[in-house]
């Protein structure tokens, strides 16, 4: 098998295993990454929401925030895991398209 095929299989396996990155933190009761709290968590931590942070934090509303579909927050780990896999696959599809386009723009064809 060509090495590039093996790498793609590896990437596909990682996409399917990605929900581990959701399930393990839940199981071990680990919260957000340090410095990546939402405004509410920030208020709990320091007692207020810094003004600049409050303004800037709502600047961009991502279509699939935190790799979960909007309104699925309360649906439980199985739904979230499904959304996580779809997010991983979608993200990688876009990334591959962008890199191939960049490659077309950047890289000259080799002479045969």
């Amino acid at each position, binding site marked *: 098998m060509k090495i590039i095929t093996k790498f793609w299989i590896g990437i596909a396996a990682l996409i399917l295993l990605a929900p581990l*990155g959701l399930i393990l933190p839940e199981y071990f009761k680990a919260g957000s990454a340090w410095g990546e709290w939402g405004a509410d968590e920030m208020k709990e931590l320091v007692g207020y929401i810094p003004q600049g942070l409050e303004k800037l934090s709502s600047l961009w509303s991502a279509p699939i925030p935190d790799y979960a579909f909007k309104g699925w927050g309360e649906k439980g780990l199985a739904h979230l895991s499904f959304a996580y896999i779809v997010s991983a696959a979608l993200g990688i599809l876009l990334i591959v398209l962008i890199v191939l386009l960049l490659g077309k723009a950047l890289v000259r064809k080799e002479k045969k």
Partner: protein
Amino acid sequence: MHIPDGYLGPATCGVFYAVMLPIWALASRIVKKTLKARQVPMLAIGAAFSFVIMMFNVPIPGGTTGHAVGGVLVAILLGPWAACIAITVALVIQALLFGDGGITAIGANCFNMAFVLPFAGYYIYKAISYNAPRGSNRRVIAAGIAGYIALNIAAGLTGFEFGIQPLLHKTASGQALYCPYGLNVALPVMLGEHLIVFGWVEAIVTGLVVKYLQKHENYY
């Protein structure tokens, strides 16, 4: 390590965009010169790998989470300039589509994870594996150490960027405007958790894949 919107003030965000623009331009020029058309799929795999490995949040029980970046492996495989482009693409998609990392912080996040991390990792790997024969264990260990140190350098930088915010921006009453934690908290926390836990994840991922490529593909 993905700094969200609102944690860095406009000055810091601007500086890092200004620093990254020439780096991105230079990376494009160098990749244009060195990357061959048949290597483009590998570049896509590198970006995809970095993107998905960052989704594997590793918990510190009862505490926070963190993750590897995979950028040192991409740098060892493709060189640091190509890695810079690959990781930048991953970080931009994470910010725009998934809100993982802020729009205003793309410059800073790319500086930490798409520039400093792959370059530090690449040169540490090159230094330790210098003159090591193909297939030797020293190359595997070099890859692991490079992953560990480079992730920690990036984490330390992130902590520093968080930590200088209270010095730069405060209201008249003394409240922080952006990240409220100073260097005395942000730096030791960011460094500590990566030194103790997450750095090892980057080390193991980098070392294992190099080992695999030695064994099955006669690389390295």
